[in-house]
């Protein structure tokens, strides 16, 4: 149904009214990729919102966006900009280096497959595009050890199959791509029928939707008026939100991206400001007395757009998108006392800045050469210190809500300056990225011990024998991680049903070894419920408090727990992680 709507009038002009587009070269491919990136950026939050678990989670949309952005950046530097093969090859390489999260890794494989399909072609025709799509599907499937249907893989495959059928009856690339896009969206709609977790959570597959959006964005670039140079096609694309009007969350959820406010951010604005990036979403309160709201609105509003300046003489609320938040804040501070200040980089460049900082940090003091090194992924200063204290040679910033790129991991592996390096991903969504590093670092033997949580990572690191060889250490670490149970305490970010339990936004939930097991109103009762169901009483419970929990609060929790579990040893440490007030390890 989504496909049918979409197919009918993507930009108000049907394919049949135009000359068929029989061939495209490197510049059109580049335009397609750029358009795909803008389209994905515009719809990034929609994809992010499709988390299966209602926990602050690996952001599929952001991961795919950052991966594709890296592809587009490299594609722009392709040695032969006029060659479809050259541009796509550069894109594939860039996507691999920038791949984050499992969805990013799979996307990089899709692009690699597409690039393989174009190999040797300066220009490509409709049949060639269909072949490349088929290759994309084949390579993506190969990259996943146990392919699951109802995911991005299914969507890519069905889109490719539709493209192939279309190419048999038409030599118009637009026709082929439109058919593939329609089928991709239709396949996304079917994912809940194929995957129970999606059905239970009332969502479609996020990675699948991400791919459909990318393909749609690519196709839209070629939809531009044929008289206009292809590289300028993007500017002509009428902004339109994906999923409107047909794409709805199964299970009666609200239509995705409906309503004016999100539309403003996700649709038109995204495409319109693409050259400057998104800027910073800056919010704060100005305290009076004697504030002149109208004067402030005029003065501060001029420093950015999407401005909202409301309030009275006592208190004014400011929300402005600006490229220079420093100027805005300085000016506002001259008018009154600032509070609740929040500055967010809307183009998510902070991911890259953090990574660059981490890479520089890792590179600064050249580590003495050693036989075996360990690189660990961790969020928060607390966990960094703990892992460093236990002998990790390099820490890559990242975790549940911010998956590191392959390149960041690769840099840390090289900086460890060791013959062999063990990577501890410490998150299920980072494992695939980590697995790609070995092939990119031929001078280092890289192995991944698939730690899915920070407690598992710490346990694995404790098992390290610096004098032992790579294989025996990996075996020992993998054995050790079975001895620890991870409990992550967080707050539900939306209503949901997971693992048979009704969850409401704001509920405290416990994720025990990747499964939601307890839901409640407060931290203590949820942790106690987890311990009551833990089976064998653990000997040691380590409590890692998150960034929002002070020492006293954590101690208070432990005092209460101790009362009910007098034989258990408790330890409290500062983990410093975001979004998860507590992470516990039960041993």
């Amino acid at each position, binding site marked *: 149904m989504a496909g049918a709507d979409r197919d009918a009038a993507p930009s108000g002009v049907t394919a049949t009214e135009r000359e068929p587009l029989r061939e495209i070269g490197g510049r059109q491919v580049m335009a397609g990729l750029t358009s795909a990136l803008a389209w994905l950026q515009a719809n990034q939050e929609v994809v992010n919102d499709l988390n299966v678990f209602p926990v602050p989670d690996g952001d599929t949309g952001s991961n795919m966006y950052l991966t594709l952005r890296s592809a587009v950046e490299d594609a722009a530097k392709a040695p032969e900009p006029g060659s479809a093969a050259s541009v796509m090859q550069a894109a594939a390489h860039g996507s691999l280096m920038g791949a984050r999260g499992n969805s990013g890794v799979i996307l990089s494989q899709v692009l690699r497959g597409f690039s393989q399909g174009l190999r040797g072609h300066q220009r490509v025709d409709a049949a060639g595009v269909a072949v490349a799509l088929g290759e994309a599907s084949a390579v993506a499937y190969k990259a996943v050890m146990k392919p699951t249907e109802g995911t991005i893989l299914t969507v890519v495959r069905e889109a490719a199959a539709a493209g192939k059928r279309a190419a048999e009856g038409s030599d118009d690339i637009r026709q082929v791509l439109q058919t593939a896009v329609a089928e991709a969206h239709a396949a996304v709609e079917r994912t809940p029928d194929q995957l129970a977790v999606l059905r239970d959570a009332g969502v479609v597959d996020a990675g699948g939707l991400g791919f459909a959006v990318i393909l749609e964005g690519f196709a839209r670039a070629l939809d531009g008026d044929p008289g206009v140079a292809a590289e300028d096609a993007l500017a002509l694309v009428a902004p339109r939100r994906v999923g409107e009007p047909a794409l709805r969350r199964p299970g009666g959820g609200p239509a995705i991206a409906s309503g004016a406010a999100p539309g403003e951010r996700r649709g038109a604005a995204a495409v319109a400001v693409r050259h400057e990036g998104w800027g910073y979403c800056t919010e704060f309160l100005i305290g009076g007395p004697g504030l002149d709201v109208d004067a402030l609105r005029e003065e501060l509003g001029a420093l950015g757009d999407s401005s909202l300046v409301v309030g009275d003489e006592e208190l004014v609320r400011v929300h402005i998108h600006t490229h220079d938040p420093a100027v805005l804040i300085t000016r506002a501070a001259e008018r009154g006392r600032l509070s609740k200040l929040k500055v967010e980089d809307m183009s998510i460049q902070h991911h890259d800045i953090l990574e660059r900082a981490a890479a520089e940090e890792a590179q600064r003091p050249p580590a003495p050469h050693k036989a075996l090194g360990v690189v660990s992924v961790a969020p928060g200063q607390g966990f960094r210190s703990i892992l460093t204290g*236990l002998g990790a040679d390099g820490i890559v910033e990242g975790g549940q809500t911010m998956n590191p790129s392959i390149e960041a991991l690769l840099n840390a592996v090289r900086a460890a300056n060791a013959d062999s390096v063990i990577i501890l991903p410490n998150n299920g969504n980072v494992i695939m990225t980590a697995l790609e590093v070995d092939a990119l670092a031929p001078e280092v033997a890289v192995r991944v011990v698939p730690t899915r949580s920070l407690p598992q990572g710490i346990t694995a690191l*404790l*098992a390290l024998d610096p004098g032992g060889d790579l294989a025996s250490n990996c075996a020992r670490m993998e054995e050790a991680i079975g001895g*620890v149970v991870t409990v992550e305490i967080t707050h539900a970010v939306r209503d949901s049903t997971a693992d048979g339990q009704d969850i409401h936004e704001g509920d405290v939930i416990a994720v025990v070894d990747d499964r939601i097991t307890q839901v409640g109103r407060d931290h203590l009762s949820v942790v106690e419920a987890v311990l009551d169901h833990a089976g064998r009483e653990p000997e040691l419970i380590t409590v890692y408090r998150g960034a929002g929990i002070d020492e006293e609060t954590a101690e208070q929790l432990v005092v209460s727990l101790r009362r009910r579990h007098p034989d258990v040893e408790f330890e409290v440490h500062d983990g410093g992680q975001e979004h998860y007030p507590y992470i516990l390890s039960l*041993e």
Partner: protein
Amino acid sequence: MLHIVTDSTSDILPSEAAALGVRVVPLTVRFGEEQFRDGVDLDADAFYARLARGGISPTTSQPSPEDFAAVYRELLREPGDRVLSIHISQKLSGTLQSATLAAQELDDRVTPVDSGSVSMGVQFLVRAALRDLAAGADVDTVVRNTEARRSRLVVYVLLDTLTYLHRGGRIGAAQAFLGGVLNVKPLLRIAGGVVHPQARVRNRRQGIDRMLALLAEAGPLEAVGTMHSGAPRLLEEVRPRLTAAYPELELGTGQIGPVVGTYAGPGAIGAACLRAG
């Protein structure tokens, strides 16, 4: 006749020593001005009780050469008497140094031997030498056998805390491996005279499992035993598992005495083995 001498770090109790027919020269434990002969004036239970009360930290000192000389002279009454003196690794204590100085005064009649081990490891060498003697071996054979056995001794100790090792200045190279923010329980391996941090674990269950796995990896054993420091409950946890694993061996059990306990601290559990030759 050959006499066997050892020191109190073998953790052979005075009552056992009398029954075995060996002489145990005590080291000294001090709490400030108070001074105790290890195992003689202060037994393990009293020592750990005192540690638990807190207050001043204990220190230790090796026996003087004269302490050894007195014992040697007493044993070397007949012209045919000889002494085999088996001691704690000289890398861990100056005890062997004192014994060697004393032995130099007595021509070639005393043979000091560095066990390269501690606690039950020393004990295994002593007991094996006694068995050799009982089997009618001559002096040179007993000495040769004892020296040969040293390389087959391995002692593991799972400490409850690093505090005591740290306080006693005996942590050395293990510092980097064991230091850090998290509390870890170090599993130490003592072999060839040196203490090596074998592993670090977060709880005893993991540590004991690891220790027993390491013993199993050591292959066939000639002797096996387990010892604790003020933690009989842990001994009872390990004992049945070792008995089940080595039904043909007589299991040695004991308590880590005050001197070694000064460094191991309370709550440690260990296992020692003499691998088959």
